[in-house]
């Protein structure tokens, strides 16, 4: 892995160089919320700092859009012509946080097992992630309990580039060939990092890991054990499920949730089949046309969600739990049954 120093005053020159050949998406403030938006230059450096400022949504919509056409059809006499919409855009995501990067690598694994998903991969292959490490976690962060951050580890984690905020400059850690190509877009801006910068990085990571607020999610392993052994009573699931509003918010803001539904449009002689974000919270998620619904009970659905996220059966299959500790479900959930609350309840 290569390490460089990039001065903060040079960031916009780098972005300018990158934007010549591809789209650059950077965190942008829109009123109170942060979104990834296309940027040519003038990146908001406040959002590219060591403090964990999370966009409202993870960057998963870049690989799994909220809705996406699978194919179009045109009726021609008795025949049909089927066409698949094109998608070729290359983009650099600048300032994605380590939790969200971990989420995308989790999705990568899921979307290549069994059958490889070409719609996912044609987007993912054209995406380069420049991760911003978090020197300072904020209130809802619990990535440290989920191996989702606050820093990506060059041995444990996959990534293209990771930036570490060193006040006046960034330490630039470059792990992949895709990341290397970004450095080469304007190599003059990148000086080799000396050992003292690496020492500072290690100290920052240590400090960050110790500055998470005391949090029930440190009991994650107890929840995993109890869910895996099916030791949580149906009454507990019902109790938790009763607090769920079936809104699907947790799934939509979750970097790891990837369930989708399929919809169909027919307008005259044309139409399309498309997929869209779906959520296992919804009562209709498993309902069959006969009316039979294997998970009609709220508690059953709630159990399903957390079994998928935390059971060892899935951990073994996917290599990590299905939560990266971004804390968005805490913000999104009107019933206050986000991941930490549930983990705390299951511990009892």
């Amino acid at each position: 892995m290569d390490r460089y120093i990039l001065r903060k005053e040079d960031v916009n020159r780098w972005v300018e160089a990158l934007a010549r050949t591809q789209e650059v998406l950077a965190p942008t403030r829109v009123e109170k919320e942060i979104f990834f938006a296309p940027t040519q230059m003038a990146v908001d450096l406040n959002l590219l700092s060591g403090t964990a400022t999370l966009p409202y949504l993870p960057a998963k919509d870049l690989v799994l859009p909220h809705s996406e056409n699978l194919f179009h059809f045109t009726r021609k006499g008795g025949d049909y012509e089927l066409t698949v919409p094109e998608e070729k855009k290359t983009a650099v995501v600048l300032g994605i946080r380590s939790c969200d990067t971990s989420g995308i690598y989790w999705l990568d694994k899921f979307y290549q097992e069994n059958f490889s998903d070409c719609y996912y991969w044609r987007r993912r292959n054209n995406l380069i992630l420049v991760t911003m490490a978090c020197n300072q976690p904020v209130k809802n962060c619990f990535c440290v309990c989920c191996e989702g951050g606050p820093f990506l580890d060059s041995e444990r984690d996959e990534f293209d580039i990771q930036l570490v905020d060193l006040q006046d400059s960034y330490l630039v850690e470059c792990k992949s060939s895709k990341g290397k190509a970004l450095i080469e877009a304007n190599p003059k801006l990148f000086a080799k990092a000396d050992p003292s910068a690496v020492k500072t990085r290690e100290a920052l990571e240590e400090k960050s890991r110790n500055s998470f607020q005391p949090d029930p999610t440190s009991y994650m392993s107890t929840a995993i054990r109890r869910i895996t052994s099916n030791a949580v009573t149906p009454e507990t699931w019902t109790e938790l499920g009763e607090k769920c509003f079936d809104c699907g918010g947790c799934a939509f803001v979750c970097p790891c949730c990837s369930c989708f539904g399929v919809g169909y449009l027919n307008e005259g002689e044309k139409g399309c089949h498309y997929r869209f974000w779906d959520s296992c919270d919804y009562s209709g998620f498993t309902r069959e046309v006969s009316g039979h619904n294997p998970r009609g009970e709220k508690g059953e659905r709630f159990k399903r969600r957390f079994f998928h996220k935390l059971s060892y059966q899935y951990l073994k299959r996917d290599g990590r739990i299905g939560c990266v500790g971004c804390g968005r479900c805490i913000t999104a959930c009107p019933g206050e049954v986000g991941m930490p609350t549930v983990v705390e309840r299951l511990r009892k």
Partner: protein
Amino acid sequence: MSNIYLPNLARIIKIQDETYDTKTFEFEFADPKVKQAFKFRSGQFLEISALGVGEAPFGLASNPNRPETFRVTLRAVGAVTWALHQKKIGDLVGIRGPFGNGFPFDEYKGKNIIFVGGGIGLPPLRSLIEPMLDARSAFKDFLILYGARTPADQVYQDRLKEWEKMSEIRFGMTVDVGDANWKGNVGVVTTLFPKCNLIVENTVVFVCGPPIMIRFAIMELSKLGFKPENIVSTLERYMKCGVGKCGHCAIGHKYVCVDGPVFNYKEIGKLPEKS
């Protein structure tokens, strides 16, 4: 990279009315290359779409030894099946698949075979019954039991009559409620068990039908001493994608569309939810 969501077009070449709400469709792929390459295993399923209306999973109901054309049997209950029921011979539908694990055919050789089918649960079993009959000598005692609500609800009536006459197999039929012409057994399918001298040793039982029928059949079979690993069924879920991605058919850590739909009851018993 191949596109797992893009269907191939297939033409309807035959339509058979089974009951007042059920039809069997025979298909052939429109593209000769697709037709030639198409193979499937007993117990696998297809995602069939009426383009622009919807897509749904259907168990293959025909003999995998003859994959040039293939059949599914479907009851008109929802938007997709209604739209498909409106189709005529020569019309095109979208087809993806075959998907799912299918029955491990060779593992059953040398065993006694019992089929317990209920109503519209017979079609997926038929994709296994037919190739087994092709290789009849590979199996020992061979018993097919079929139950339907009324005589009018029986599918494959012509084939049932042939099975009834076949000397190399045993066959039993029942209805929950008879009509004026019905002279056979009346009662749910499990009422046939005591009359058929079921062999428990070295036997595999295939059960498929509505959830309630499956539940009672398993209960009765367990009482008779059949072990869960020797009772095999195909699970039903609304499998949207068929390829383990959309999440709709997950039970515990299994995806019915990829890890199933064929499971034995030892596997089903290990799942952390009711199936």
